[in-house]
């Protein structure tokens, strides 16, 4: 009887149905996203005030060229990119954690980070050796294109390695991913050795991530891929919930687990691949956002995935604001900001879980 009342007391503290709480959190996050977005449009090194510009424009006045460029060509595409990349990293993290049944999985676990990094370094170091026509065709897109190809390539390779007779083993994928990452690191090492000083700096900055290169053309290129990747998420929610009970039980519940795995991996490859390709390496969002949400409203993916998209977008916009302002007029790479903010949170998560579930 004592045991029962203890358990009941714990249940009571947690409160009623978490679904209700999750829905309220969604509404809150939507409002917060709007507020943060507007605030990010008015913040920046250039001191341009969006509100003032809007007022001038509405009253028929002429907004200065500089203010127009700052608002429409710098801040707005950056905001769009931040929303897309933040949302896709967080959702991909949640998908991978559900798929691998491990709250510490991040989107890069399927090989995307090592592949994208290898693609980027190849483009940076070997780019000058490519035919000029090819390079000028891609222009600014050479590195993102190579990174995207690299990310996709490694993910597909890992998927093929881990899938036999239509069954994908996530454990194999994880281990093969480690092996592949080591191989990619070796090749990268060779290329780093061949690189000159400028190329090394370019690579360093790429891997620290930045939204600074966000232009409308990049936004338009990345948006369909990222949206397409994330569109699969709602359909996966139910299946990933069931996967928490183990693959066998999920199958007994009627879930087509091989299909769920395939779609999840492809979705993450597309959306994270595009995100990383455009903005370089931004870490911690994929792990920290889903984890915080699970602590708040539970692991039900039907609410976790949309909330993760919202919170991921919010956090990345905030990180971008910090990176733009903190050492103005220079700029801190955003990967540094997310690392500085994210690693204490990550550590706290790990310490909290000690003793609970063998971590």
């Amino acid at each position, binding site marked *: 009887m004592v045991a*029962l009342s203890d*358990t*009941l007391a*714990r*249940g*009571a503290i*947690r*409160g*009623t*149905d*978490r679904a209700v709480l999750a829905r309220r959190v969604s509404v809150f996050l939507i409002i917060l996203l709007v507020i943060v977005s507007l605030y990010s449009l008015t913040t920046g090194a250039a001191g341009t005030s969006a509100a003032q510009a809007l007022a001038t424009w509405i009253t028929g006045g002429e907004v200065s060229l500089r203010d127009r460029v700052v608002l429409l060509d710098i801040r707005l595409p950056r905001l769009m990119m931040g929303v897309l990349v933040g949302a896709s990293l967080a959702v991909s993290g949640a998908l991978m954690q*559900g798929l691998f*049944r*491990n*709250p510490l999985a991040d989107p890069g676990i399927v090989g995307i980070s090592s592949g994208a990094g290898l693609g980027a370094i190849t483009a940076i170091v070997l780019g000058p050796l490519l035919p000029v026509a090819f390079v000028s065709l891609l222009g600014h897109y050479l590195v993102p294109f190579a990174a995207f190809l690299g990310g996709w390539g490694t993910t597909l390779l890992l998927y093929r390695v881990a899938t036999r007779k239509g069954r994908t083993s996530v454990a194999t994928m994880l281990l093969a991913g480690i092996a592949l990452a080591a191989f990619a690191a070796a090749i990268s090492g060779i290329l780093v050795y061949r690189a000159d000083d400028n190329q090394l700096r370019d690579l360093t900055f790429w891997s620290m991530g930045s939204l600074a290169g966000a232009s409308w053309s990049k936004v338009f290129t990345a948006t369909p891929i990222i949206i397409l990747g994330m569109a699969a998420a709602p359909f996966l929610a*139910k299946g990933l*919930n*069931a*996967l*928490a*009970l*183990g693959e*066998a*039980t999920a*199958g*007994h*519940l*009627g*879930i*087509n*687990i091989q299909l769920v795995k395939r779609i999840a991996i492809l979705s993450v490859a597309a959306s994270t691949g595009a995100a990383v390709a455009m903005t370089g390496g931004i870490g911690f969002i994929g792990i920290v956002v889903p984890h915080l949400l*699970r602590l708040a409203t*539970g*692991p*039900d993916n039907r609410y976790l995935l949309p909330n993760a998209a919202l919170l991921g977008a919010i956090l990345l916009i905030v990180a971008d604001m910090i990176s733009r302002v903190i050492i103005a007029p220079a700029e801190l790479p955003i990967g540094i900001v997310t690392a500085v903010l994210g690693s204490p949170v990550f550590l706290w998560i790990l310490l909290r879980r000690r003793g*609970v*579930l063998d971590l």
Partner: protein
Amino acid sequence: MLYAKDITVSLGSKPVLHGITCTAAAGEVTAIVGPNGSGKTTLLRALTGDIAHGGQIALNDRDVTGMQAWQLASLRGVLPQATPLAFPFTVIEVVRMGLMAGVSAGRNHLPEQALAQVDLTGYENCFYQELSGGEQQRVQLARVLCQVWEPTLDGQSRWLFLDEPVSSLDIAHQLQVMQIARAFAEGGGGVIMVMHDLNLTAMFSDKVILMKNGRIVKTGTPVEVIANEPLSDAYGCKIDLSRPAPATAPLFHPATVSTH
């Protein structure tokens, strides 16, 4: 009716099941018993499609291999020996997952009823991971019950596959779970369960399949199978059922409440 013909399973090159042929009828509780390593759980896993196997399996006169996961899910529920949970879901959230299969629309009242059946009312918002092994097993049973609430649906029998459903439970709950299985069978559904406990098997099943070393050594009613010779042979130790309990070691036999 469950009909399994010539089921063979190999682990690598080592054969584990050697051409098992057996049947189980709807409206009956069929128990599979035998010593450790006899292949009981392997047989159950083959019947539920978890592992690759040779041979044919027909459920309700339909070949199982041709059926999709969602079709099977509306016909049968599976309770594994133990179910770890990767994320901190609450009890009610786990039980609700049983509603994923097939006819789940608008059946939100079922989880609470199922929890009541397994004597876990009030535990809805507790974390599954914080429960004891026995309590977790009962939660999983509630989930399975949600999945196949009606023993028969549209004239078709539905099935429960239970792998050692009472091994981690206390006496009262063992009886409770056995009574649930009985009631399901009496409602027209089929129950197939792997059991360790021969007493409960004798009390609650209609048919017993005794296995040893990957083969069936005896099939029949409890009286036929749970007898000195078959058991001694299968378990490799002298068993004498007629021997009375010595005064210093009372024999435990709970009073049954079933209509069996």
